[in-house]
């Protein structure tokens, strides 16, 4: 309550421009509550702080953040799916792959993506494979060959069970037929730090969080898991061009509860579209190393559905093996 009040006061103080109904908008509510499944100051919050000031201006409504951390976002998303009135007044930041892996991996988490209304994805941080600067692996092939020669001995860090990097490792194992020794960490930072210090052989992490270290030469990037090479890392091959059908990363966007009013959804999508096209927004996003990946409406729903299918398949295959450990 206390933090909500403070957040409210701050939002009010900062978003004064949003209070003036400059545009003839008729969004159903004057205020939109944004539930976040993670702590203030984390990745979801970074998205909220980036997008919502612009969005408030576009729509002429106030955005109020509510932080409900716990169970890798599942508490907030359960509330979104089961207890939220679909009046346009409450939305949530939805992070993939946790949005779907949560309930795929844990039967006690009962919401599904069929109970939410995807609005739009805003950013995607592509996956990347990194090793220490002095690692014997100089190319992705070196890494794959070592893993092939000694199955289950090459240690690869990820950001935690159920996170994007964990599932990227699983997908890679399936795709290439090698077996890695997967080591989960509590978040991306500890994972790439361990790779940098040579505590593990490699880390599957994300570009946005490891880029400064790659640029400085503290980490070597072996491959990115994006569709095409990244402009900032032109010399790093994609896994795809090396022959592995692997595109992965962590995405963040917005969703509402099931039965979300269609006009409100369209209005939010249109406003978000205008925001991501705003050059000022693009400049700030680039400064904060946020890779815009705007996918809206039914396309976003289709993306989530496709991911759900993939993860269900992978988890069904390896579930027993993992839980036996």
């Amino acid at each position, binding site marked *: 309550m206390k*933090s909500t009040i403070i957040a409210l006061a701050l939002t009010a103080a900062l978003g004064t421009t949003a209070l003036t109904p400059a545009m003839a908008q008729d969004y159903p509510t004057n205020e939109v509550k944004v539930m976040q499944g993670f702590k203030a100051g984390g990745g979801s919050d970074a998205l909220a702080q980036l997008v919502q000031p612009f969005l408030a201006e576009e729509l002429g409504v106030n955005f109020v953040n509510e932080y409900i951390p716990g*169970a890798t976002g599942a*508490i907030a998303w359960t509330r979104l799916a089961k207890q939220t009135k679909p009046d346009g007044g409450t939305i949530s930041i939805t992070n993939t792959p946790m949005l779907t892996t949560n309930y795929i991996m844990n039967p*006690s988490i009962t919401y599904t993506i069929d109970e939410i209304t995807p609005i739009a994805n805003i950013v995607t941080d592509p996956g990347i494979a990194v090793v220490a600067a002095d690692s014997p692996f100089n190319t992705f092939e070196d890494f794959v060959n070592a893993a092939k020669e000694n199955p289950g001995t090459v240690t690869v860090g990820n950001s935690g069970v159920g996170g994007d990097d964990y599932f990227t490792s699983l997908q890679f194992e399936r795709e290439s037929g090698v077996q890695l020794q997967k080591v989960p960490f509590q978040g991306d930072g500890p994972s790439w730090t361990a790779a940098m210090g040579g505590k593990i052989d490699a880390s599957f992490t994300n570009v946005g969080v490891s880029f400064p270290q790659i640029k400085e030469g*503290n980490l070597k990037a072996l491959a990115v898991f994006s569709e095409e090479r990244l402009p900032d890392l032109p010399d790093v091959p994609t896994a795809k061009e090396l022959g592995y059908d692997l595109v992965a990363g962590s995405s963040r966007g917005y969703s509402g509860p099931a039965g979300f009013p269609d006009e409100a959804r369209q209005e939010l999508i249109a406003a978000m579209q205008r925001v991501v096209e705003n050059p000022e927004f693009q400049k700030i996003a680039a400064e904060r190393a946020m890779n815009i990946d705007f996918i809206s409406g039914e396309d976003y729903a289709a993306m989530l559905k496709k991911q759900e299918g993939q993860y269900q398949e992978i988890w069904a295959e390896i579930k027993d093996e993992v839980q036996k*450990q």
Partner: protein
Amino acid sequence: MESFFWVGLANVVDPINIAAIFAGALIGMFVGAMPGLSATMAIALLLPLTYSFRPETGLAMLASLYLAAMYGGSIAAILLRTPGTPAAAATVIDGHPMARKGQAGKALGLSLTASLIGGILSSIALLTVAPLLGKVVLNFGPVEIFAVAVLGITIIGTLSQGSTILGLFSGALGLLLATVGMDPTTGTPRFTFGVLDLFSGINFTVALIGLFSIPQAVRLIVEGNAKGEDRVSKIRDRMLPTGREFVQMLPNSIRSGVIGIVTGLIPGTGGDTASWFAYNEAKRFAKNKADFGTGTPAGVVAPEAANNAVVGGALIPTIALGIPGSSSTAVLLGGLMVHGILPGPTLMTDYGDVTYTLLWAVLFANVALFVVGIFFTRACVAVTKIPNRVVGPVIVVLSVIGAYAINNSMFDVGLMIAFGVLGLVFDTFRIPTPPLVIGLILGPILDMTLQQSLLIGKGNWMIFIENPISATLLAIALLSALQATPLFGGIGRLVKRSIGGGRPTTGGTE
């Protein structure tokens, strides 16, 4: 590099930045004094406010807030036996008994002075050897951190004097409670009974608020206003230590400060761990071991010097490499990104002006903390004039708000009360609470790093012995544990006798 050093100093002395530092100190102290409101939370909430400031002004304010919250936590710990922040839990043990003896002002003055010494030490470390120490962090992987946690567990021995069995019971219970939640390597929920709110484990701060505050509130209400010695009401006693007392506390403060810096440096451990390490060492080095727990000044000085020194320690990997050393510095890093500064190895070079301003701000924040602290604390001591039957219920109200505010969760309020009942049971049967706290702090770290280490070592336990850092730490832990057994005492006596010299037994309070 050299030029940035002075540019930073010039930036900090700008009146606007000085004002920001003072404002940060005041907010931080308030937040720290309130149970449940943490420095991390305050930084995260104030971050958007600083968007409109210049980067150095915003960061100076946030750094000052972080530091002041570390001291603020001790105010409630001493006056109300309710740690305002997890890092102040160790301060309760000797701080509150001091207050009950009518030395509330003195205890707070010691805490403030110790905080200043610890903070200044860590600022100096930051300004001089940060780039060197930053690299050390990379040597701490899961195997080494596991060994640090094992060493931490041996503190339970120190904290359970009186009854070792009850102390070990309490510590073991803490470790068991720490296993609640998702298994870090398989994602399987353990002991959650299908309750989603338990998937992330028992929130440590929630447990802490319950364990300390609720029994205290009940005690105050039951006792009512006893005449005379039980009132924490003497505020006329001198707050700041005399010159002689200052000299006496100096070795303890410096040792604890160094412990704080090192603990802050190690990823995954912060103020909550450092304060216990420092308390343990203060007791080990003290001559009046039996006085610990009854209100000895050294027991207040050690944790408070350590938890403020953690701030600088945690910032070292942050600025040298862009690796957050604690959850608070992780949020601070977010603050840098907002101003277009990508946290990473270039912080000291490309953005040297802003970074050095931040480092100088930490140093100045210590002074601001001291000045603001003197006035703020005077005001706080007035709490002791309020009748116990009023203070008790107020503590309960603050605890409920605090427990709710952490995750905006009603479940946590219930959990806090459950831990409150546990605390009452512990008090009734004279089971020491601190070992339980240690178990709760170190349990998750042990759990995570043990599983990670075994994954890295492919299931071979020898990995802990083959690694020089972990082997050394584990050997120290073994010695430390043996020290508490009769076997070791016997050997010690033999050695002492063969040397033939008894130690002088007279000594001061340090």
